[in-house]
């Protein structure tokens, strides 16, 4: 009796026949994703000495330090949230019309137009940031040009301002907004649009009552794909923001790589991750299952 139950558990529930196919990834994810995350989670609650080395005892000091008065990290978290929202909003404002236009008027060259959006995102992102830097910096292409034709007398300062960072973030992450929206718009059954017109909707009403709600999944999918990486970005603020506008990610990199301060770096990371998980949760609540489907 008990034997039968064990066998049933092994074959039906655990289903060992699935092991050859899902075994490798399970082990891999456990070893190289879950364990590392668990380790920094634990380290973030360990003490540290003055030099930033780990002291093996439970302590909340790291977190206390992060949010102590005037902490640059706390400010950078706020800055990251702000920049990520701005990036997200801008990507939506540019990305939605792009996706909409490609779906509606793309005709036979739809795949090509979409490729034109994706291709930049497939090249090295350090290089793309550099391209932007060459354009807006001083000496930079735009400034050189403006000075040459005498439109300005002294170089305009864009580089190393918060604006430059936000511009960079939009530039890098825009394609990831277009893709999921494109997919969700492309998935709308055209007869639904016809039905709405047939029932008396004007083109504007049709867009607001049918197209927009049905592409909600794409919008929130795109939000996940742009907000999160923008939130966690560290190169863009480093290269385009100089020393002045570091984001949370830049601090993490700084503490891990330059300072070698693992406890503090870990607690920053844990906090950042918590914020992100919260954000994803909100997006899924608002955008439904579709949001997840669209980003995959």
């Amino acid at each position: 009796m008990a034997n039968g139950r064990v066998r049933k558990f092994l074959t039906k529930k655990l289903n060992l026949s699935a092991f050859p196919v899902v075994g490798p990834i399970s082990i891999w994810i456990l070893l190289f994703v879950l364990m590392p995350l668990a380790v920094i989670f634990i380290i973030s609650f360990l003490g540290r000495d003055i030099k930033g080395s780990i002291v093996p005892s439970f302590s909340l000091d790291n977190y206390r330090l992060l949010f102590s008065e005037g902490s640059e990290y706390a400010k950078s978290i706020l800055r990251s949230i702000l920049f990520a929202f701005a990036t997200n909003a801008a990507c939506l404002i540019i990305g939605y019309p792009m996706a909409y236009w490609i779906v509606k008027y793309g005709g036979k060259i739809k795949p090509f137009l979409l490729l034109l959006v994706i291709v930049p995102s497939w090249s090295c992102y350090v290089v793309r940031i550099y391209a932007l830097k060459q354009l807006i910096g001083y000496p930079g292409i735009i400034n050189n040009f403006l000075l040459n034709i005498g439109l300005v007398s002294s170089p305009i300062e864009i580089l190393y301002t918060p604006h430059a960072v936000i511009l960079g973030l939009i530039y890098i992450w825009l394609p990831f907004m277009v893709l999921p929206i494109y997919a969700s718009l492309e998935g709308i059954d055209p007869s639904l649009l016809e039905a709405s017109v047939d029932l008396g909707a004007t083109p504007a009403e049709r867009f607001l009552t049918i197209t927009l709600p049905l592409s909600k999944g794409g919008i929130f999918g795109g939000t996940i794909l742009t907000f999160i990486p923008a939130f966690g970005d560290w190169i863009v603020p480093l290269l385009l923001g100089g020393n002045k506008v570091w984001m949370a990610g830049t601090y993490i990199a700084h503490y891990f790589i330059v300072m070698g301060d693992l406890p503090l770096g870990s607690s920053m990371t844990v906090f950042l991750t918590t914020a992100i998980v919260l954000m994803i949760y909100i997006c899924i609540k608002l955008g439904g299952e579709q949001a997840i489907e669209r980003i995959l």
Partner: protein
Amino acid sequence: MENNEHIPCVELKKLVKRFPETVAVENVSLKVKQGEVFSLLGPSGCGKTTTLRIIAGLETADEGEVLIDGQVVNKIPPYRRNCNLVFQNLALFPHMTVEENIAYGLERRKTPKTEIKEKIGKMLDLMHLAGMEKRYPAQISGGQKQRIALARSLVLEPKILLLDEPLASLDRKIRKELQVELRRIQKELGITFFYVTHDQRVALAISDTIAVMRAGRLEQIAPPDEIYDTPRTKFIADFMGATNIFSGRAALKGDREVRLESDEGLVIFAFNHKNIPVEKITGISVHPERIHVLAGDSKSRADNSFKGKIVEMVYQGDFVETKILLLNVENSRSIIVHLNTKLSQKSQFSIGKVVLVQWDKENSNILQD
């Protein structure tokens, strides 16, 4: 309202629609009377759906005019036309509840909230759907979706309701129920229906008038019984299930009779009800259920009687579809008859037996092309 009984509800005048590769609608003219169910029947790709979409305003005609209630509507956008469409896939808005779906059109017209509520209530009663208001399309059955799609259009009280094979996806039993339902609702509301289908049984069951369409052209417009009994062309005869079609050369015999010498060498007589000129006659069709089957040794001197051998019997419930190979004929010609199930159990009507088939000349339908 003045008496406009004589004005057709919808009239198409020489409608033409060309697509890059083909002509979808070629010179189609028809009139739909007020309050009737008009079916446009034809195989897929014959242009019937395009015709319907032109009436709805979702496609524009290249030539010709569309009149609704005597007014040319070619230039009126679909959202201002007084006609509504029930889509083949129903096109229920998946993100809206049943109630919101039905309210959609009324909201576009800025109908007051209380009135919307009242109208939806009435519609749901009419459709036997009360209690479903808050459900989403994904949570209801196929038949219920059907009714909601219907309700969503009917609540706007259109002059004419266009239906694009909305029953096609349902299984047989529900389809039959809904056919009856459709007819009841139509009678109750008195709204004109324009029904597009490829299923001749549906068309026969629900229509007042049927137009048969083939490759963009209309082949015949007539009431169902006329279309069924006296199809005008081979195409229609075949489409309506008259599987026995004989082509050949005709000659007049007497005043009202036609004598057709078929390509296989059979001599078939027909009664010329409609006085069709002999030079236009190209063949004769007979419905399988109009043919008698007699034992092989019986003597018949009646017209249209031929000897044959039973080669195939397929049980169909109320009848047995029987294939009979005619004897003494070139080109191995066979005839399909519907044999009474009782008769089929007798030993003289089993496979391999020689039988006599016979039909009256009144049941020979004259075909022209």
